[in-house]
């Protein structure tokens, strides 16, 4: 765990130093939200049912952008070789990077999510605790899957193109679960009606976090 903590702090410090990931992710999320706001402006009530889906699609692409930046940093001056040639567990490298990315995604949402309420009339305060739970669980799962796939693609020449192509089919069930849970929570439905989606998120997170920790050693080498 000490190695995972070192990697987590390293990614955090790099982000605080450059602010490259977070600023790109926030700007992208805000720009897409505004675009949606203009697109649904003609009939806002009719589109209300689609807003949770639009929100999670926005954060899917925001996550792709963040992952590309997070792993892109490792390519500069071949810094990733410092991690790979170090006498540390690659599973710990995976955990450290996933934890840092989870934090970046969460921070991006804290900044940009109010725009969904402001411009798309999304009732964010209707069930704030439920919404927070859904966001945290979905982000954990996105970070677990995304870090694994981005790590796998890092050494591939076409890695940047492949990342969204590989990530979307893998994350589709999770994004569906997040969308359905968000819709149900904001509509004020009781938890027992949508707890299945939460269980799916937790299962996704546990499975991929475990797989990432165990197989990162094999996939991180070229």
């Amino acid at each position, binding site marked *: 765990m000490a190695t995972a903590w070192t990697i987590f702090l*390293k990614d955090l410090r*790099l982000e605080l*130093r450059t602010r490259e990931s977070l600023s790109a992710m926030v700007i992208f999320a805000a720009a897409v939200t505004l675009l949606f706001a203009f697109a649904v402006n003609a009939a806002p009530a009719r589109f209300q049912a689609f807003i949770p889906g639009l929100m999670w699609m926005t954060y899917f692409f925001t996550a792709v952008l963040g992952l590309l930046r997070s792993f892109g940093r490792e390519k500069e001056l071949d810094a990733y*070789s410092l*991690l790979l*040639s170090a*006498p540390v567990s690659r599973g710990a490298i995976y955990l450290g990077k996933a934890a840092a990315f989870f934090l970046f995604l969460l921070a991006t949402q804290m900044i940009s999510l109010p725009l969904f309420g402001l411009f798309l009339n999304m009732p964010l305060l209707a069930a704030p605790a439920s919404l927070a739970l859904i966001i945290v669980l979905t982000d954990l799962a996105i970070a677990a899957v995304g870090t694994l796939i981005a790590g796998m693609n890092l050494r591939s020449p076409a890695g940047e193109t492949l990342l969204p192509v590989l990530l979307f089919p893998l994350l589709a069930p999770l994004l569906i679960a997040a969308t359905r849970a968000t819709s149900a929570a904001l509509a004020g439905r009781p938890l027992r009606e949508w707890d299945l989606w939460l269980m799916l998120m937790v299962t996704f997170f546990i499975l991929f976090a475990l797989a990432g920790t165990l197989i990162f050693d094999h996939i991180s080498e070229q």
Partner: protein
Amino acid sequence: MASFFTAVNINKSFHLHPVLKDVSFSLATGETVLLFGRNGSGKTTLLRILAGIMRPERGTAYLNGSILFTADSRWRRDVVYLGHQPNLYPAFTARENLMLSVRLRGQTWDEETFQTLLSGYGLAGREEEPIRVYSEGMLQRLGLVRLELASWRLALLDEPSAALDVDGTQTLSDALTRWHSQGRTVFFTSHDLGWGAARAERALLLSGGTISREAPVSTESDLVSYISEEE
């Protein structure tokens, strides 16, 4: 001399094109060995495999009898690698980068040694600057400071003298002599065959994906003639 490091039948391909074909060789304790060959002969690939950065398709290696390339990362404690690039983060300062490197190797930070090494490599007073402002030569010097701060028994150096000026090359030569006297093994590549021949005790020619010649080093012209004979 007893074999300290042995590589056995290492194979690696890229896009079905074989780069290394059953590469086998040994290194003795404290030996300084030059790996040379034409561009694209697979020198960097071989060093990166031995450092654990790339995975061979077949083959293995032994360090003091212990098998390498296993999931247990402890074998990498005895091995350090310095590539064409310094393997450091451009946004971090020299100090932050080296502290990270030391921490990853499970060692403790020694400020006095750090300052002494910085002075020795001509980087004194530059430790708080982000290394993205460093020149190529300064980055290479910092990469060497990273090596000096680590405890290791086998160093894998890919073109260590590239980008270094006269002073820097001399400092590197002194370091190679010191490491040799400390009984540390160095396996390095260089296209500057004159410099390489003067530093190495033995040279391995990598050609056609295999170690095609293994000979004690005498002069640069010997090495050039070995390459020519392979064509």
